[in-house]
């Protein structure tokens, strides 16, 4: 059957070896332990002004209530559930850096400098009351930020069989 690989050669010899330079160009991800974070640093105050310029039109002044969703926790209107935000639903602070750098602003993805992303990350963490306004966010400090939602996350416990989970 097709899945059997016993007849495969040790190598098909296809593809070319990737150089460190080209890997580095593409390897933009950031892990919770900080692996992947670039040099640079940011602070909330600088992030705030970038945010107001480049992000607030979609995510609201102060990160609350824009057409593309809040990023900052706020007190919900009476009878409403709180919006899911970085402050109440994100388990890792590194994800803010990773995601903003790869995908935002939506209309110009990939346009921010690492420094800008650090500032924005600091701003979003501060606006969500996770860090104070003096905290400098960099490759060392960001992985250490403990997110309010962290303890809520559990791995999938469904496993098939009769039980509804």
């Amino acid at each position, binding site marked *: 059957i097709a899945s059997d690989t016993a007849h495969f050669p040790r190598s098909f010899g296809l593809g070319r070896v990737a150089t460190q330079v080209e890997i580095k160009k593409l390897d933009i991800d950031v892990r919770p332990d900080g692996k992947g974070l670039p040099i640079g640093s940011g602070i909330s105050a600088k992030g705030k002004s970038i945010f107001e310029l480049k992000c607030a039109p979609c995510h609201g002044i102060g990160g609350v209530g824009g057409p593309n969703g809040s990023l900052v926790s706020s007190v919900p209107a009476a009878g409403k559930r709180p919006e899911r935000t970085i402050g109440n639903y994100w388990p890792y602070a590194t*994800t803010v850096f990773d995601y903003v750098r790869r995908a935002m602003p*939506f209309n110009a993805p990939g346009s921010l400098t690492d420094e800008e992303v650090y500032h924005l990350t600091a701003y979003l963490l501060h606006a969500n009351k996770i860090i104070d306004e003096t905290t400098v966010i960099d490759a060392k400090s960001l992985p250490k930020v403990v997110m309010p939602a962290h303890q809520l*996350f559990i791995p*999938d416990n469904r496993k*098939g*069989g009769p039980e509804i989970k």
Partner: protein
Amino acid sequence: AAVAIVQTAQGKNLQQAITVGDLPDDPTKVVGTLAGEVGTRSSFEKLVKKPSDISSRSPLQDFYGMITPSDLHFERHHAGVPTIDPNKHELLIHGLVEKPLVFKLSDLKRFPSVSRIAFLECSGNYRTGKETLSPQEICGLTSQSEWTGVKLSTLFREVGVKPNASWFLAEGGDAAVMTRSIPVKKGWDDAIIAYAQNGEALRPEQGYPVRLFLPGWEGNTSVKWLRRLELSDAPFMTREETSKYTESVNGKIRQFSFDIDARSIITYPSYPQRIEKGWVEIRGLAWSGRGKVVQVEVSTNAGKSWQLARLQEPILDKAHVQFRYLWEWKGESTEIMSRVTDETGYVQPTYQQLIAARGADGGYHFNAIASWQIKPDGAVLHKPEK
């Protein structure tokens, strides 16, 4: 009936005019359209997906069989469908490997290939709340294709995945630079680096020129427009596996909920169709991300009793299966519904069972039984759940 299909492809025009002008009164008396390069739908068939900006739902109620026409495969993307030059596109595999490699599309096509018919479903595939919902609106974010590509295990052998690699990051080349962390085990098991769909190249909406395809897993993990795989000893905790594609379950947040739970839906009769008195073949689709469909039961009395439906062979692993149940409708008001059992013994739950098990937060992986109300005049309406 003016009908034309025009495909302007890289400066070359393909034109296939089926009919322009009036319908012939008697088609046996006029020579028809001569043979062409590309066919098209009859102008009488209006099959369309239902789009929002970020997704587009397959018209399940209009389909026959188990294959989804490629141009009607559901869409879900986080920054639109990119336009990618297949001659420039490359796939990099690096991280915890002996030998990081870059593959051109033409390299990938030279490896031993594999094909399988399997569904792809978005885990956010559930709507209810009003009576005028069609299957397309309730759960049109599932489709099925024959996927062809190279097994990821074949590429893993080629790069030499290290023993301490437990997760890999899959990254797309779209404007979202979509990323998901996947257990390496899935890569060895049955992951496919797919470059073809239903006989031809992937469609742009489905990841052209190359995508990850993870049979039975929530659609978002089958990263499209794939450009990079990084082997790692831990998950990356990307936005798509933390802020999104996680479920609030009894005060906790369930993460890495990859498997698609077994599900079924009656597609005929369904809203907005209408039935007439007499024999009705109830038809639908059933599937499970955990393996094969074992049985589908149908109730024609609002769940009081259940009968075995017939399954159309071949019953494939992690695939939509057609089910059918012959019912004589005498004009009574009633409700009809289906539930599937998969090979693990999992039985598709009711909405109430799901809420009881998970709490009232809703969210992804909502695979509840969907019921259709049959009205005495033959109208068919969704039964909103609460």
